[in-house]
């Protein structure tokens, strides 16, 4: 039994030859076979549906499936605008407590039951149970099947946001055991459970009876969970999907591959200095220390060097298109000497230590080495604590970390105030009261439009003056897509995260 080098080479090359033979007979596997442009839209999702198909209050990020299946009474647009959906028209009471919806006639859920006042009530009842802090005390009044008034006991500055984020589903479906696996809505698409693999591929078929069906041109919609960004981008490059969210780190690669990219600037990456009374970290009770922390960060350098220009420096803790935004220059420009002087004036030239909670996958963590280095110049030491698992969010918001670094940003300035400025806001993690902000919030709750606007801007000015935050940058959120297959003229996601389903044309 002798062996020649040629024979040995053939033996070693056998697996490769086998693989190539398999490839040869495969002919591209499951890649789309072309066909009409509007046959099918295939979108990648970097994470699975958080709460299945249930209509509980879910994150809006990459929620194309939920958007496809369910209608809402109205939709939120960027900049605090609202547009009709299941409600043809509506009225908001003068006291900002009640929303009266006039439902479209003849609209049905996919199980054939009507979209009526009873089903709207059943849908909001789900939120009463699962989001009781916002919906727990609402009451209903339905003079007829197509009219319903939803009333809160107190004035609601975010009334339209509350109403417009609530999904509507069939009463029968809501009473069933399959609430989170077999959705029954009345949106532009219906879920095809037989053609789907939960957690991996979701198939949806166009609902021709949807009132605005023309705005959704694709006959079928496929959502593929591609958790790994490399896999997602490869799938897009090779035509397996038509679009996916991408991070700025792969922007150049996507651009060089000939993909179209749309970017929306949204969100504020900030250091949240929530211990303004100095209860946990005494130094933070002094406004000069908080101002010094603002001045030691060179925001432009961060944008240029760490974000490669895919962001804009910010100095106001609100979305750039928000009503609270003021036309002002950066009150705390980068000035190391001035920052050190402020620390010395405050008597904290020896600095202090705080812990920043981190979570894997958060793009802002690339900032931490720079923050550590810069704050060390003020003798401020950053320690890190990695949070993981399902308790991570609860720990993050527990108040154990008075100085979290996080990107936040809501569709409206009012909601931003309610989330990270008000003492009840979940991002104001120490929940320290402040009479000035509370007084201005009352003006937002009860005032007219002018007063609401003025109060928002006064709150902004107040928190800037008192350096409640260290705003750093507002990043671009990128969406890459196949320009031959898809057209995206505008992004209507109020959160600015990515195009919504209606934006794919």
């Amino acid at each position: 039994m002798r062996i020649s080098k040629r024979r040995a080479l053939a033996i070693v090359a056998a697996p490769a030859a086998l693989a190539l033979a398999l490839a040869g007979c495969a002919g591209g596997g499951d890649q789309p076979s072309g066909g009409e442009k509007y046959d099918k839209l295939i979108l990648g999702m970097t994470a699975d549906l958080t709460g299945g198909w249930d209509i509980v209050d879910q994150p809006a990020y990459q929620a194309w499936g939920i958007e496809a299946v369910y209608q809402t009474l109205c939709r939120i647009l960027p900049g605090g605008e609202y547009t009709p959906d299941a409600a043809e028209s509506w009225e908001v009471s003068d006291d900002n407590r009640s929303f009266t919806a006039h439902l479209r006639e003849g609209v049905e859920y996919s199980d054939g039951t009507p979209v009526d006042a009873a089903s709207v009530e059943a849908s909001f009842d789900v939120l009463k149970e699962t989001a009781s802090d916002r919906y727990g005390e609402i009451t209903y009044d339905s003079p007829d099947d197509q009219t319903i008034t939803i009333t809160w006991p107190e004035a609601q500055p975010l009334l339209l946001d509350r109403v417009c984020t609530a999904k509507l589903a069939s009463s029968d479906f809501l009473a069933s055991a399959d609430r989170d696996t077999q959705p029954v809505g009345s949106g532009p698409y219906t879920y095809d459970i037989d053609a789907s693999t939960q957690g991996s591929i979701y198939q949806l078929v166009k609902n021709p009876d949807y009132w605005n069906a023309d705005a959704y041109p694709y006959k079928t919609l496929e959502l593929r969970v591609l958790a790994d960004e490399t896999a997602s981008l490869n799938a897009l490059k090779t035509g397996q999907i038509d679009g996916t969210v991408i991070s700025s780190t792969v922007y150049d690669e996507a651009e060089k591959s000939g993909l179209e990219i749309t970017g929306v600037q949204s969100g504020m990456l900030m250091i949240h200095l929530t211990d303004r009374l100095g209860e946990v970290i005494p130094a933070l009770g002094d406004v000069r220390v908080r101002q010094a922390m603002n001045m030691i960060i060179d925001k432009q350098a961060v944008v240029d060097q760490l974000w490669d220009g895919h962001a804009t420096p910010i100095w106001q803790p609100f979305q750039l298109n928000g009503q609270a935004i003021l036309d002002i220059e950066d009150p705390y420009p980068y000035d190391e000497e001035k920052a050190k002087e402020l620390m010395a004036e405050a008597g904290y030239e020896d600095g202090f230590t705080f812990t920043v909670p981190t979570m894997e996958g958060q793009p802002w963590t690339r900032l931490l080495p720079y923050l550590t280095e810069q704050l060390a110049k003020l003798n401020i030491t950053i320690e890190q604590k990695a949070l993981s698992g399902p308790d991570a969010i609860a720990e993050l918001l527990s108040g154990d970390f008075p100085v979290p670094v996080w990107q936040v940003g809501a569709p409206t300035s009012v909601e931003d105030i309610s989330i990270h400025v008000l003492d009840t806001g979940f991002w104001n993690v120490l929940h320290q009261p402040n009479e000035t902000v509370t007084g201005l919030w009352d003006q937002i709750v009860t005032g007219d439009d002018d007063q609401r606007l003025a109060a928002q801007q006064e709150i902004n000015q107040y928190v800037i003056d008192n350096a409640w935050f260290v705003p750093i940058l507002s990043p671009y959120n990128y969406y890459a897509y196949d320009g031959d297959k898809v057209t995206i003229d505008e992004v209507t996601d109020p959160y600015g995260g990515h195009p919504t389903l209606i934006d794919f044309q």
Partner: protein
Amino acid sequence: MLLYIVKHLARAVGVFLTVTFATFVVMYGNGAGVARATLGMNASAQDVQRRMADLGLDRPLFVQYFDWLGGLFTGDLGRSYYTGQSVAGALGVRVPVTMSLIIVTLVLTVIISVFLGVAAAYYRGWVDRTVQVVAGLGAAIPSFIVAVVLVLVFAVNNPILPATGYVRPTDSVSGWLASITLPVISILIGTLGAAQIRGSVIDVLSRDFVRTLRARGISERAVVFRHVLRSASGPGIIAFGLLVVAMFGGTIFVEQVFALPGMGQLLNQSAQAGDVPMVMGCVLVTTIVVLVVNLIADLSNALLNPKARTR
């Protein structure tokens, strides 16, 4: 032999209970976190408590574990905390994907490893050195690195095979083959057991009975493949049993890179989210497969080598 089988089965049950209970203990205690994760960042404490009660997460550890264990006898493995999907349903879809990878990889591993191992041991010299270098490199390079390179070369730069996704063989056999080719190669490169086969064959080739067989004029092919390989198969079989465990580990990364809807991907996502029912379902399947494979390996070894039965 019967006693041997009974002892191994009893040991397998013990391992199964230990592994599943240990997993449950590790995953237990995140009830509030899970409830909050399903309700959103700003969920109230009252809603979190209600959600915990709905999911049964407010019950003691042993109650939850025995509830899960009892479900095994009725086929009810529970539902995902996050998506509501039944665990049995999810596994029914995902296990075939992962098993496709593992079975095909295992078959190829056995064929190639035996072939290379025997060649290295028989010919020695440059063949031996080449096989050892190839096996060493394969073991040293992580499978996900291999996967990334393969995708780049065979899917992105030269679109021969799909970059992601899985096609069921019932939908298209050629599509199925194409969808698993790169993932299988990625795992295969790291699991070649040629070194173990080589060592065993070298050992057996030096024994007296081989010299006797040759002296009787039996062909080299028969000596090597009929007599030597049979005697050398014991360590190889045990090694292949262990490789199955390694392959399960490999699938977790490879399924991620190729976006294959398999059990590794499900386990990875579920473990990060604290989705205990899904994690337990995956652990159940993995444990059973590993135990069965090891049992088969032990029994095969015992059949081929009577000395092994006395251990």
